[in-house]
């Protein structure tokens, strides 16, 4: 197993390099000359040229990228044009807000979505099932930021249960987390429902029932364990998407996370900040996906056997052949 995890971690390196190169490449397409932006409109052409040389902007893209990555490994992601601060510090200051938001959203989706999905599957075509299907259809059709605005009008401006903007206390996170979770919540309901429906129809469930096991016990002990595996993967995969979705939701609730940071940096044409922040989100998302993938293999005995004891599998394969 350790070998497998190590192998997957090694495989992570080209993905991280790929993601960062892709974003570096996309950002290099921006029409403005960074040296010109730093020095301002009235700088002489010689000064601009000298700074270009100093910044290494005349080198090929690959060389520039390699230099960027070697600096990044040492924790240097450049300096913001706007504030003059090291970008890495600004990102690390803001990331916890985004992280809390995404974690909160995943938690809400998992804690509420899975039980609702189970009930829907067990009581297929009941009113609970129909209601949860309608709700999940509506939630997936709603733009998250609008959902957030509606929640804000109802629960913050009219009922005054929660503050409408900011991120200084737990209460501030309630509405943004619910908002961000809306899509994932619906996805959790649907995934749990469909995997549960599949498991309930399996032969082993009938066998267990025939042996006199109570329906609840069969569901809890047998079906649920198998059904939850794909659900966990989906939840993990959602994390990266939620980090991206947070970009819009943060600006609805004025949360000073990475999302609002990226949006502001884009508007101010602060290229080093944008490149680093987007790379950061992309890489974190990619890493989380991979961790989920490894965990999944670890949890699922069927997959685990394939990687942990390759000899046993090859023997059984021979027998099969």
């Amino acid at each position: 197993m350790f070998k497998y995890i190590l192998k997957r971690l090694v495989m992570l390196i080209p993905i991280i390099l790929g993601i960062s190169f892709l974003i570096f490449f996309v950002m290099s397409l921006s029409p403005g000359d960074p040296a010109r932006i730093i020095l301002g409109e009235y700088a002489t052409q010689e000064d601009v040229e000298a700074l270009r040389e100093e910044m290494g902007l005349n080198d090929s893209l690959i060389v520039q990228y390699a230099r960027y990555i070697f600096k990044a490994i040492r924790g240097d992601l450049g300096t913001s044009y706007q504030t003059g601060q090291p970008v890495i510090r600004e990102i690390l200051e803001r990331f916890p807000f985004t992280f809390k938001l995404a974690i909160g959203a995943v938690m809400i989706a998992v804690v509420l979505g899975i039980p609702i999905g189970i009930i829907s599957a067990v009581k297929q075509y009941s009113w609970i099932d129909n209601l949860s299907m309608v709700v999940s259809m509506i939630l997936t059709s709603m733009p998250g930021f609008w959902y957030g605005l509606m929640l804000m009008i109802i629960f913050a401006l009219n009922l005054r249960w929660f503050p409408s903007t900011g991120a200084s206390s737990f209460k501030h996170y309630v509405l943004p987390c619910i908002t961000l979770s809306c899509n994932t919540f619906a996805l959790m309901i649907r995934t749990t429902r469909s995997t549960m429906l599949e498991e309930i129809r399996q032969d082993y469930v009938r066998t267990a029932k025939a042996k006199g096991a109570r329906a609840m016990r069969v569901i809890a002990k047998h079906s649920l364990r198998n059904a939850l595996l794909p659900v966990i993967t989906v939840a993990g995969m959602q994390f990266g998407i939620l980090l991206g979705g947070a970009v819009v939701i943060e600006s609805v609730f004025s949360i000073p996370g990475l999302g609002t940071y990226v949006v502001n940096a884009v508007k101010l044409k602060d290229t080093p900040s944008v490149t680093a922040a987007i790379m950061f989100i992309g890489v974190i998302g990619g890493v989380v996906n991979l961790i989920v993938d490894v965990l999944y293999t670890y949890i699922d005995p069927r997959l685990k056997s394939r990687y942990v004891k390759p000899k046993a599998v090859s023997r059984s394969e021979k027998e099969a052949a």
Partner: protein
Amino acid sequence: MEKKGRSQSGAIWFRFQKNKLALISLVILGAIVLAALFANVLIDPELVTTTNSSLRLQTPSAEHWFGTDLYGRDVLARIVYGARVSLTVSVTAVFGALIVGGLLGAVAAYFGGHVENIIMRIMDIFMAIPSLVMAIAVVAALGASTVNLVVALIVARAPQFARVVRSAILPIRDLEYVEAATACGTSHRRIILRHILPNVLGPIIVQTTLQMGHCIIQIAGLSFVGLGIQPPTPEWGSMLSEAREYMRRYSFLVVPPGLAIMITVFCFNRIGDGLRDALDPKLKN
């Protein structure tokens, strides 16, 4: 299959129309598309952009069904013209992504080997970045405008089409009739376009419909944060961003654009689901 004498498209339609929700969605979406197409006949274009400070922030009335915005423009008129903008941008972006991604996926699946490996590994990297973040990166590099938004959405969405098209073609690639066509000396281009593509149309159509919904939401989201379609062009997301400033007292302005997005996306999603069941009855439940 269905009864004798029914053509294949007839059989698909027969199964599709049994899904009432999908059928209703098709009718509603049809109405939205017609309203968008004939917006300038239905509503005076002047109403959309002309500002009138004496009419600003009026609550809904018989004259202005959804009220008026900060600049005294009729909200209903802007919603209808907004449909035009949203639908045009998302149709262009989704078809662009379909062509780019679909070709890459088809080439990867058809030729296999190194070609497939290289294309799909690059697509994996694209897929690892959340599509909204990818779109923001492209807008950040090129600047916020409608054309750049379309480019951004194509870049962000093409990999998904590549994956769908590839996985649809893979099981067909090695079938005997393709082998027969190759043996007859048919060109690769003709085999892909004439022999393989018609057989994988189903998943592509479903994916295209579902992507339209996602795309409309992303357009609205990007415009909402100011990185998409720029004001004064009427767009649902940027209307919401304007309405948000006056939400405390004029909350009625926040409702219509969001409902417009939701209804349109809902229709696309339901039609997509309906098509999936109609095109491949085996998949249903």
